[in-house]
């Protein structure tokens, strides 16, 4: 059984998705989705445990030997990303049955759960596969599924946002597939590990360099690296809050994973950073993302849009960490993958709680919400503190490791910029806190708290934010393990 864990990781949710269409019943599909997602979460926990104790797990699908058949290859990094994706899915799903989203789609809820499961499958597949073309296929599955999810938003603009997401996502996927094709032409293999082994022999010719550029830009679109982030704010703003919570916490993380995988494992540190000057442009874009996106976030009227821009800024931190090209920097990046999933998930779920009571997300319309929906706003504030990086929250751990890594890499300026950009986060979080706690509620303000079914998942994420702000051995331990392997890996 444990031998087939890598296959189960993807297959469980993949099979459950069409099963939803057959079952149809609103509650039945929910339970089906919930059980399969939790099963997937259990599988990824087992996988992570297996990887941390006995090293890389390699699985040949259908028994076809590695370079020719499709290989699932799980190391610490994959296992960690799998944990993030399935974990967030497992926490967000219980939120859905009472959320506004399901009440709106009504009897067609089964389609939502089908798309949700497909999206989870796609993201898990990208994270687990060791085959370049397989990676592209899963990427497409996830982006088509997320496109459906986004289009379910209550506002009509959700449709254009979904359309835009589709187009941009397709461009990204196309770039990736072009890159993969060029590599295939140069090396004659699609297995990521095999590519890594053969590349030095092929020589770093123009084809390989072009493939490299296409892959970076493709991944950059997927992870919404500034200035390729335009699709993200719109998508997250108009998507249903539940979907925003899931996508913000997982989709871009998988994008970052793809970037790290190609830079460090497939092409190797020597090619990616020593032969080609990749670190500096990435660092530059990351810093720009941190500042420009945070500044834009400050000026947003809508909380959702503000959080979306904040995501772009946070992605900047992740890319910044890896652009230091040190074990410390990479550790900080991977830790932040995890911690940002926790905080953005919590924040968007809190928004989902608000959505249950009122349709507007304008900051002005949140006036006095601290009194009307105390638990929701307390959760939002706690998530905001984590976003800023206040000690005893997960966000602090990320910033701490990132700053230490910048200092260790002899980049005091970068460390200073991290601190300054955190101050921008203080401003935009404060705007919401100020409105919610220091203003009188307006006439149309809701009078009740969100139902418990919505509050519990939100507070679970908040509790995790605090827990992983204090007890850091899991994220930091796994990240360090993964970062060491990545820096030592490749030619």
């Amino acid at each position, binding site marked *: 059984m444990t031998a087939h864990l890598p296959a189960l990781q993807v297959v469980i949710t993949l099979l459950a998705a069409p099963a939803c269409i057959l079952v149809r019943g609103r509650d039945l599909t929910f339970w089906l989705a919930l059980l399969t997602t939790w099963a997937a979460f259990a599988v990824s926990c087992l996988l992570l445990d297996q990887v941390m104790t006995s090293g890389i797990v390699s699985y040949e699908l259908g028994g076809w030997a590695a370079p020719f058949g499709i290989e699932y290859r799980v190391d610490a990094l994959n296992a960690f990303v799998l944990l993030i994706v399935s974990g967030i899915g497992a926490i967000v799903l219980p939120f859905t049955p009472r959320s506004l989203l399901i009440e709106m789609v009504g009897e067609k809820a089964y389609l939502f759960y089908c798309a949700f499961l497909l999206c989870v499958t796609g993201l898990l597949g990208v994270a687990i596969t060791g085959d370049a073309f397989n990676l592209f296929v899963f990427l497409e599955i996830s982006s088509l599924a997320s496109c459906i999810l986004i289009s379910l938003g209550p506002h009509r603009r959700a449709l254009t946002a979904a359309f*835009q997401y589709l187009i941009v996502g397709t461009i990204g996927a196309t770039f990736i597939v072009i890159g993969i094709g060029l590599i295939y032409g140069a090396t004659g293999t699609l297995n990521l590990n095999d590519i890594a082994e053969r590349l030095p022999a092929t020589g770093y010719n123009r084809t390989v360099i072009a493939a490299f550029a296409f892959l*970076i830009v493709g991944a950059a679109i997927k992870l919404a690296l500034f200035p390729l982030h335009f699709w993200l704010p719109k998508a997250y703003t108009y998507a249903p809050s539940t979907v925003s919570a899931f996508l913000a916490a997982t989709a871009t993380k998988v994008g970052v994973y793809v970037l790290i995988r190609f830079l460090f494992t497939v092409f190797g540190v020597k090619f990616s950073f020593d032969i080609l000057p990749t670190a500096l442009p990435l660092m530059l874009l990351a810093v720009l993302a941190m500042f420009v996106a945070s500044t834009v976030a400050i000026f947003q009227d809508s909380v959702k*849009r503000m959080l979306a*821009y904040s995501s772009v800024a946070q992605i900047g931190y992740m890319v910044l960490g890896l652009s230091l090209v040190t074990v410390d920097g990479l550790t900080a990046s991977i830790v932040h993958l995890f911690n940002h999933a926790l905080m953005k998930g919590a924040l968007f779920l809190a928004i989902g709680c608000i959505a249950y009571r009122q349709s507007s997300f304008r900051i002005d319309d949140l006036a006095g919400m601290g009194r009307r929906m105390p638990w929701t706003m307390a959760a939002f504030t706690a998530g905001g503190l984590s976003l800023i990086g206040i000690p005893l929250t997960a966000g602090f751990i990320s910033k701490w490791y990132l700053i230490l890594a910048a200092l260790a890499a002899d980049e005091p300026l970068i460390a200073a910029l991290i601190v300054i950009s955190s101050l921008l986060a203080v401003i935009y979080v404060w705007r919401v806190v100020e409105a919610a706690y220091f203003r009188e509620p307006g006439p149309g303000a809701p009078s009740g708290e969100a139902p418990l079914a919505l509050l519990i998942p939100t507070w679970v994420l908040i509790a995790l934010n605090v827990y992983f702000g204090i007890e850091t051995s899991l994220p930091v331990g796994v990240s360090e393990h993964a970062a060491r392997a990545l820096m030592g890996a490749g030619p």
Partner: protein
Amino acid sequence: MIASLPPGLLLIVAALAIPVLPDALRRAWTVVVPAAGLWALIALEPGTYLGFAWFGAEFVPVRVDKLSLIFGYVFHIAAIVGAIYALHVRDTVQHVAGMMYAGSGIGAVFAGDLVTLFVYWEAMAITSVFLIWARGGETAYRSGMRYLIVQIVSGVLLLSGAILLAEQTGSIAFDRMALGDLATWLILLAFGIKCAFPFLHNWLPDAYPEATVTGAVFLSAFTTKAAVYALARGFPGTEMLIYVGAAMTAFPIFYAVIENDLRRTLAYSLNSQLGFMVVGVGIGTPMALNGAVGHAFVSTLYMALLFMSMGAVLYRAGTIEGSELGGLHKSMPFTTVFCIVGAASISAFPLFSGFIAKSLTLSAAAYGGYAVAWLTLTFASAGVIHHSGMKIPYFAFFSRDSGKRCKEAPLNMLIAMGTAAFLCIALGVWSPALYSILPHDVDYEPYTPSHVIGQLQLLAFAALAFAVLIRYRIYPAAIRSTNLDFDWTYRRGIPALIGVVWPALWSAWQGFLSALAGGLRAGIGAAIRLAGPEATLARTWPLGSTTLWVAVLLGGFLLIYYL
């Protein structure tokens, strides 16, 4: 159960119960809890406790050795005495603040790492300020605010130093440090502020006299002594401290002599006493450290006693201005006697506690060959006799009769003063009691003819000088006045200077701000336009722009890669 709590934490936790306790129980509680703490402390074995690692640093919340134990004992005694003295007070805030403050002080001397020390350090600052604010009124409020700011700055400096030190050495352990780099200087400065080094001392005579009657007793005991402990732990044998300490003993004397507010006189006197301890720490030999620590022990008791007697006067007579008082020995005989015991102790009269401690420091200075320091200390000893030994009791209880007739101090105050007075005499008579708990082994006999005669000569001539000065009315008369101390520089001088420079700076700043605002507005405006908020731009445009950016980025990467 009590023994397993870190020392000090018991008091802090127990203080939380005070507001909910009924009146009678509350009175017992405030005395019993510190007593229980003392009992638990006596049972405590030396060693380190409750150590844990967090964020890669080794925390040692409790480190027990002889140096911390002696401070722990005296802090508990001071807490008990102070609590008895405050029994009649009905203001719960003061009781809570007093007990938490004592607990923080005790916790600080048992802190085995700099971060724990910092926590207690700030806790002392925050809890003690309520003892000043409880006095009520604008003066007390402002004075407390200044006090709080200074104390918090000290804590911040300590934390900064600790972080730098941890960065260099990888350890936050609080042990002996070598003064050299920025980290240790910051830490020394933090200690120096709390210890009231010259030019950093103004908070002390500023704030203590503004505290409540009972609050001043607590204040006199903990903050500065904890700082002495920190110096003795961190910087023993730092030569600079000898001269800093010598200056500290000498210069407050002049202020003490001319000051009219008798509690402020005591505050200056306390500052001078701290100088003795700092000199001892600076010399750093086992004998000198014994002197410093022993002096801290006895001085906590007699300073508390003196503050208590002056507090009793303030409580009954309603004023503490030397010019308004006099002749109170008729009304308050017991208080008079206790005050004289305290005065004799601080004057280092043989058979009183000051004698057995001060001689240690003086002898250590003499043996170490620090002539200047020895002379200054001797001069300061004479000065102490003047302003605390004679002036305080004389102006308050004798002098010309002010005609004030008031009641004797309340019973609980008398008991507290009596306890402290008893300890002052007992320690002076039976010196081994103190010597046996000093951090280093003591091979010293205070009662040799040369010590006793030398001290008696000093006392006799100082008394003679005082008598002569009073007789011929040369002694600075007790008049209402405001004396300028160095804090004029902080409170008037620097603000005045700023008043000149400020307008220029302000206009420059305004110019900078408006330029910045213009730049920001332009930048943000552009960002908002680009990011496409609600429908200002056609909906399809961002899609095109994204594609454009994708192309630009790809082109850029390819360009730099192929070049």
